[in-house]
């Protein structure tokens, strides 16, 4: 059972919700926000394994290449250029699709590997924690996300998604059986939440909303959920105390005042399990 935590807008509390729910559900925590994975700052697992993630990019044998430009014509990502008498390769634009090798009649293209990041695994007590880290300057996160999610455990996994509704989020969602959307009651929060809802609905999986920084009033997020008939499965109050605990890198679940907030969300999630 994989539970994706996403939001649309950044900074709404995906990591707060994912890390604390991992504790409440005793679930594995997986940080797919590989551009800035910050869940380990809170869970502080002892890391016992690191794997590199590499992608393929074309290497052109100049002896064999006749500069016919077939590879350039067939590259959908502008990673190859035919400069009169040589082919230039822009490896960061390459999506490793393999088309250039197939169309090369001279057999001049082989693939080399380039490391774009790594995956770290560790444990916090009995919770397995995994995170992907994309190297700075690398544009493509999807290969790391795919590698992480292709090798996850079969029990309950919490997938901490990247912000937004980009390819990175779509790829994280592909593996999810249900989704938790974290939002905040602001215009920006609502705007991006709508996009996230649209995305989750395309996947046709059950989902619920957690309102973070909630001021209890009849706010715009609540009205939206009511109109759209979306379940609000939890709320985290708007409080300086919570901000303080978070800023120190501590877990809200370890504080008796807030433990039940996440236990309630965990209960709602379990309810969804039993329905489906």
């Amino acid at each position, binding site marked *: 059972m994989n539970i994706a935590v996403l939001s649309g807008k950044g900074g709404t509390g995906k990591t707060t919700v994912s890390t604390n729910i991992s504790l409440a559900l005793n679930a594995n925590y997986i940080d797919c926000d590989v551009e800035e994975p910050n869940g380990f700052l809170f869970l502080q697992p002892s890391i016992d394994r690191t794997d590199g993630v590499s992608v393929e990019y074309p290497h052109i044998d100049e002896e064999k290449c006749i500069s016919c430009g077939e590879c*350039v014509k067939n590259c959908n*990502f*502008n*990673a190859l*250029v*035919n*400069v*009169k008498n*040589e082919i*230039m390769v*822009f490896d960061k*634009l390459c999506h490793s699709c393999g088309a250039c090798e197939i169309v090369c009649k001279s057999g001049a293209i082989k693939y080399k590997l380039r490391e774009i990041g790594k995956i770290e695994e560790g444990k916090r007590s009995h919770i397995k924690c995994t995170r992907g880290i994309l190297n700075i300057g690398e*544009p493509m996160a999807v290969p790391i996300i795919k590698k992480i999610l292709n090798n996850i455990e079969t029990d309950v996994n919490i997938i901490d998604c990247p912000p937004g509704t980009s390819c990175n989020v779509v790829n994280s969602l592909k593996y999810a059986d249900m989704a938790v959307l974290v939002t905040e009651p602001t215009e920006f929060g609502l705007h991006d939440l709508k996009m996230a809802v649209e995305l989750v609905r395309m996947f046709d999986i059950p989902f619920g909303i957690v309102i973070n920084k909630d001021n209890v009033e009849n706010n715009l997020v609540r009205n939206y959920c009511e109109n759209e008939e979306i379940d609000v499965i939890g709320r985290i109050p708007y409080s300086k105390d919570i901000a303080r605990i978070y800023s120190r890198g501590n877990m809200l679940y370890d504080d008796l005042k807030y433990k039940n907030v996440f236990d309630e969300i965990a209960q709602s999630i379990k309810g969804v399990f039993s329905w489906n």
Partner: protein
Amino acid sequence: MNIAVSSFDEKKDALLDKRFGRCNYFQIYNEAKEQIKAVKNEGQISGSGAGVSAAQQIIDEKIDVVITGNLGPNAFKILQRANIKAYKCGEVSVEEALSMLNKGELEQIEVAGKAHHGMNV
């Protein structure tokens, strides 16, 4: 000699577009024939590598000189490798840009500009 100017549209009085990879058209002036033609920038709609794609088009059109605002790192590298000179110009009409080049009033682009400069402009 063929001179390509990045421009906003295909009309005769079009303005120079300071974006290279994301411009709408290249207006190509053939010095020998004293003729100008506009070609659509095929790279403009690329998800990524618009500058690379535009540079490929410039090579395929057998261009010797490019007049634009900025070149990103990739496009700069490609034009340099292909021995195509690039000159920096402001937002003037294409005609004006060509005459400024003729008078030697344009400075050559010696360093690459920022990547993605033409996005969301």
